[in-house]
């Protein structure tokens, strides 16, 4: 394997250079996500679809990354792999220092529970459960006792300004509020990454901006955020944009200076891939 972590660096900021010397050694603590030669093929009735053809990607702690690409580019597949919902056919995937590409189903469930906070395009809240019960769900699977669950879920909802809506059911909430419940649910177990799949796909532009402000605030507080989107103006909120095409990384740019949507020029830097 030629792609050691040493080869993947962020050129402009020297302090982010990886320190892993050899393949097979767990990447250091600076890296939340390290993917090496990630491949995923699907067998669609005899025809093999190569959704990912070898993706190398390293995402550091506290990064705010958007993954973009046209449909069929493999971005959904990549997101599923990053979210431990799926396992790669080839390559290695390290999440927060753990090699998850070889984990069993139950171990993956545990990783999803502890390390990943999902935010979906369609919110995916349980319709009959209240906001509080929805947010408690990951804690239930983490085996947290009921009173602590309630306390932590309330805190998480407070942090997305939904304190007064604890006992509302999803159909009593607006789209933006629903997505904020979903964000609270994603954050309640203090995951390593917040993984959002088209988080604004079902929202109008005002509400989308509202959700983006929540993401920005979370990023400012140190939360690693990865979101998959096909909307450039949503991706523009991220500080790094990874574009996939035909199952490989086409471009990977960091924005040194984060800018609002009004149009001030971004200072961008290519992230080096060998």
């Amino acid at each position, binding site marked *: 394997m030629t792609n050691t972590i040493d080869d993947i660096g962020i050129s402009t900021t020297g302090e982010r250079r990886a320190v892993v010397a050899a393949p097979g050694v767990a990447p250091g603590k600076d890296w939340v996500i390290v993917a090496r030669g990630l491949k995923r093929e699907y067998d669609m009735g005899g025809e093999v679809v190569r959704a990912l053809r070898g993706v190398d990607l390293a995402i550091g702690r506290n990064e705010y990354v958007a993954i973009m690409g046209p449909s069929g580019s493999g971005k959904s597949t990549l997101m*599923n792999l990053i*979210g431990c*919902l*799926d396992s790669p056919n080839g390559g290695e995937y390290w999440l927060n220092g753990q090699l998850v590409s070889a984990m069993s*189903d*139950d171990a993956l*469930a*545990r990783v*999803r*529970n*502890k390390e990943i906070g*999902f935010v*979906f395009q*369609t919110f*995916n809240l*349980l319709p*009959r459960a209240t906001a509080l019960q929805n947010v408690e*769900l*990951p804690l*239930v*699977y*983490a085996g947290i006792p*009921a009173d602590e669950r309630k306390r932590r879920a309330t805190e998480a909802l407070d942090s997305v300004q939904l304190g007064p809506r604890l006992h509302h059911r999803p159909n009593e909430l607006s789209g933006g509020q629903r997505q904020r419940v979903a964000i609270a*649910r994603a954050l309640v*177990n203090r995951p390593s990454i917040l993984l959002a799949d088209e988080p604004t796909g079902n929202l109008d532009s005002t509400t989308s901006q509202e959700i983006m402000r929540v993401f920005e605030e979370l990023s400012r507080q140190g939360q690693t955020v990865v979101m998959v989107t096909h909307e450039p103006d949503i991706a523009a909120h991220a500080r790094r944009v990874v574009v996939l095409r035909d199952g490989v990384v086409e471009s990977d740019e960091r924005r040194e200076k984060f800018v609002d949507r009004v149009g001030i020029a971004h200072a961008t830097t290519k992230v080096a891939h060998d």
Partner: protein
Amino acid sequence: MNTFEAIRLALGTIRTQKLKSAFTLMGVCIGVMFLIAVVSIVNGMGRYLKDDLVGKLIAINSFELRHRPNINMGDVDAATWQEYQRRKRLRDYEVPAVIEALPAGTRYAVVADAPINMTSSFGGGPRSVRVTGVEGAYFDIKALEVSDGRLFTPQEYAMGTPVAVIGPDVVERLFPSLNPIGREVRIAGLPYTVVGIAESQGSAFGMSFDNVAYVPLQAPARRLFNAEANMIDAVIIQSPSEAEMTEAMEATRQVMRMQHQLRPAQKDDFSLQTSDSALAFWDKLQGYLVLAGVALPAFGLVVGAIVIMNIMLVAVAERTSEIGLRKALGARRRDVLAQFLVESSTLGAVGAMAGVALGVFLAFVMRQVTPLPTVVAPWSVALGVLVGAGVGIISGVYPASRASRLDPITALRQE
């Protein structure tokens, strides 16, 4: 996944899908209802036989030495019956040796009886009455008292005085508007003086225990009881405790075998009838009835199981995206499995509880409209609920395992 939460979720599903749930629950409900009702009716019949019939005929801790049992619940085959017919009758001269062998504290009574016509010059025509000649502690053993008048004196027993204690039915027939005490009654034409009226002993299966008359065994009617005057029908022996009764039975058996000169290999040619032996056949029958009471509702439960399985499969299909979400949030296979199993067993248990309520109600109705003292057996309630939940679990296994094996990505994508 918290069980309590899963149960609440299941109850929520039942609430929001009332019609579907009602059909789901019906099979289990009917099955459990019949289980409870049948068991309680069988129990009621058993209690009726024990308390109202055999209990009245055979006193506590007592047994009756007879040449053959007089309480037969249809369990005697032809060969046994022929053997009964060949048996020697008991004779009064065999009694003293038996009494001699009994442990101290044992009470006994000698009895001969037959249906005999009774008449009086005060009331209606002749009436066939079960006339019982008694000697010894008969009234003590049977705990039978007089509602008016008195029982026999030792002298009357010894002398064979023609005195009688008559039952309420006889009073009603032969002395419609008179106090019979001190008046004459004729037993097969023989004049007797009524000295007492026996208290009512009720009835069983429409058969009155009050159409009776008691006379001292040695009184003139004696020759009418059996073909020969020294024949007797039974020696009733009562011990102070069950252990002593066993001892008394063994002593009686040895004495009787000796008197009948039986070799060790020969079977007893007499019977020691206890309430247990009288009820032995019932106990066997009860086993079959309970089995039927369990087997028939089982069909209902099988139907219930199939319906629950179907409903759960639909529920899994409807909630595919929920399952995907739960998996994404960290639910393991066994968490999903447990959720659906708890849900289906809750469905089953709720159905079972409805069945218990209906079964108890059915048993109550039976008690009100029939003489059967139906008793709901607590074990049948417990069994009913357990079986209901069990049916739920069994029928939930397949849908739940299907749910637990869903691929989270595919499941999430489904709307």
